[in-house]
């Protein structure tokens, strides 16, 4: 059987991935650069290709509330958002994870106002790292499609029952066209069984849900919630393995790496910029530089052990991210640094902050990062946080 391929954008890939996952309910509110996904899903429902209820909610707060309501009766639910919309959902994000409603969401990573910007960075989702959702970041449209299917399986797993956010860089992925392989529905059905959960309201066994707890019990609920996200490690790794067997594409679970084994300096990345970094690695390797890249795929659960072992031999490490926690450093950096500190890794670690509000991160930028890491490894003084490519003079 010949494989089906289509030339589609990241947003469209998400829509197809969602369709193949057979959700019962879709509740979403439009926001650039997510809109194409919800438009395509509406069209699929209209054409009868997708047998789902499409709810025209009046806000993102209602999108997540409606999704939770549907999930609370045992329906498979999908929502999608970005930036301001994701933030408007915040109350519901914590509610969904605490209520153990395995809603799946696509988030088109976009900058957060003010100043307004419709373009990409990762400050929206990274600022919600503590909301209890599993967070994965994809690198291309194929991975976006594939991860929608995996996300339902991971989120709905009885050991996990936790909502999951699939993040893709705004415009760079959402609006860029690529050749994408479309999985067979029958194979998706085999990979992703129907959603079954005891955590639902039903008439045979009525339940009171979303209750309040007293100080006596609250910590125990939160302990279990933490455990659930940790349980996702095994479940997502199994999903990755089974997916590879079924569809021939493997994403290596929580982290991916390229040329890291003997690398003297390493960049740690998140999302679509990784592709550019790989190209630079190839170019610099050809010139004899021992450089490599580690791509974080999951921010929650966090690939602590993998990062500890993959970075063990490097002499300097840079974390490249489209995020800053004002007054400190990027959030990805904080997480990576914490993981490495636990194993006493004391090599210099730099935080390259850039790509904010849609600014390109060029090959030259990345080459400069590697070169700087090499100099730092050789003893040059450095500052931890480096806003690279600033258009203004600083007197730092």
């Amino acid at each position, binding site marked *: 059987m010949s494989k089906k391929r289509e030339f589609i954008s990241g947003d469209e890939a998400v829509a197809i991935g969602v369709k193949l996952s057979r959700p019962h*309910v879709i509740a979403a509110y439009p926001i650039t650069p997510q809109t194409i996904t919800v438009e395509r899903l509406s069209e699929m429902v209209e054409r009868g290709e997708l047998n789902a209820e499409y709810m025209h909610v*009046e806000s993102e707060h209602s999108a997540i*509330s409606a999704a939770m*309501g549907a999930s609370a009766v045992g329906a498979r*639910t999908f929502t999608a958002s970005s930036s301001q919309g994701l933030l408007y959902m915040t109350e519901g994000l914590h509610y969904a994870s605490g209520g153990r409603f395995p809603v799946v969401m696509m988030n088109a990573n976009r900058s957060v106002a003010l100043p307004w910007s419709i373009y990409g960075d990762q400050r929206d989702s990274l600022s919600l790292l503590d909301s209890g959702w599993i967070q994965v970041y994809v690198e291309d449209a194929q991975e976006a499609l594939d991860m929608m299917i995996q996300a339902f399986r991971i989120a709905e797993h009885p050991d996990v029952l936790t909502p999951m956010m699939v993040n893709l860089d705004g415009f760079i992925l959402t609006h860029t066209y690529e050749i994408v392989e479309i999985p067979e529905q029958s194979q998706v059905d085999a990979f992703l069984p129907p959603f079954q959960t005891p955590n639902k309201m039903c*008439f045979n066994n009525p339940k*009171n*849900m979303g209750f*309040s707890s007293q100080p006596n019990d609250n910590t125990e609920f939160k302990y279990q919630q933490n455990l659930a996200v940790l349980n996702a490690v095994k479940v997502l790794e199994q999903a990755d393995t089974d997916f590879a067997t079924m569809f021939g594409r493997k994403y290596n679970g929580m982290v991916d790496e390229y040329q890291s084994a003997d690398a003297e300096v390493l960049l740690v990345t998140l999302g679509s910029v990784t592709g550019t970094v790989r190209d630079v690695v190839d170019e610099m390797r050809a010139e004899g530089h021992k450089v490599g890249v580690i791509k974080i795929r999951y921010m929650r659960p966090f690939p602590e052990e993998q990062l500890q072992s993959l970075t063990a031999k490097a002499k300097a490490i840079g974390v490249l991210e489209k995020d800053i926690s004002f007054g400190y450093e990027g959030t990805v950096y904080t997480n990576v640094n914490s993981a490495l500190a636990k194993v006493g890794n004391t090599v210099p670690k730099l935080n390259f902050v850039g790509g904010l509000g849609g600014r390109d991160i060029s090959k030259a930028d990345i080459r400069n990062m590697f070169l700087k890491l090499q100099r730092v490894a050789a003893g040059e003084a450095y500052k931890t946080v480096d806003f690279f490519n600033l258009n203004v003079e600083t007197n730092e």
Partner: protein
Amino acid sequence: MSSANTLTRITPKNITDQEFFYGHKACAGCGGSLAVRLALKVLGERTYAAFPAGCMAAVGFIYPQMAFTNNAIITTFPGVASMASGIAVGAKALGIQNFKTVAFAGDGGTADIGLQALSGMIDRGDDVLYICYDNEAYMNTGIQKSGLTPFGTQTTTTPAGKNIHGSKTQKKNLFEIIAAHDIPYAATASIGYPQDYIDKVQKAAQVKGPAFIHVYASCPTGWGTPTETSVEIAKEAVDCGLFFLAEYENGDYRLTRNPKQFASVADYLKKQGRFKHLSDADIASIEAHRDHKWERMRRMWNHQ
């Protein structure tokens, strides 16, 4: 009256003995919990009930003591209408049949923070009965002013003093805001007129699509009234004309109770701690506002 034609009218004689909401921690004499209890008896066990943050959520779901024998869930404060929508739509998508979804929200959860979600729910035509129990303030957080707090009410955020005599604004016109959506069925009711309320719940339950009931529900704790007078005081609010009983159906408004003569507003107000401070001039202005409202309702709406 408003009982649906093919149904046996539910009355005190034949209403089920089954309790769906008991063992909860509401204050003695809580009007809101009575509104919930009666409505659930009418709706029956195949009911999903959704409650936003507010007194009913706070008193009914204290882990591990759950007070509902039917399916029930607390929602976010602004999100009860959307979560109820999701429940109704999700259950439909799963092929579940013969069930009802009901939302019970306070005046604040309905007329203020939840109004947008409620508007969306009605606009989508989702099959949800939304019941607003109106105790005229944010009670759960300690009696603060809401959009349905009447003029002159002392609350903890509208203190009555020399300069300001309690709440400076009138109640939002919630019933007409909802009706303006062209909702299939909307009604007002009072726990002081339980049969009328039961009739309206029974009728609303027959609607396939959104239905709305605004039920006046006294709160002895927030109103400063004796616990044993809750039903009486909710009746007096209607009798003195500060609340009204009406329906909206097929595009028409109808007063379901049109008192020939109003009972005394002053008597009603003076019984309640929250209005104790009102001057004669304040009371006269409350009466004038009542008369203006009734003049308009009688002129524009159907009535006997």
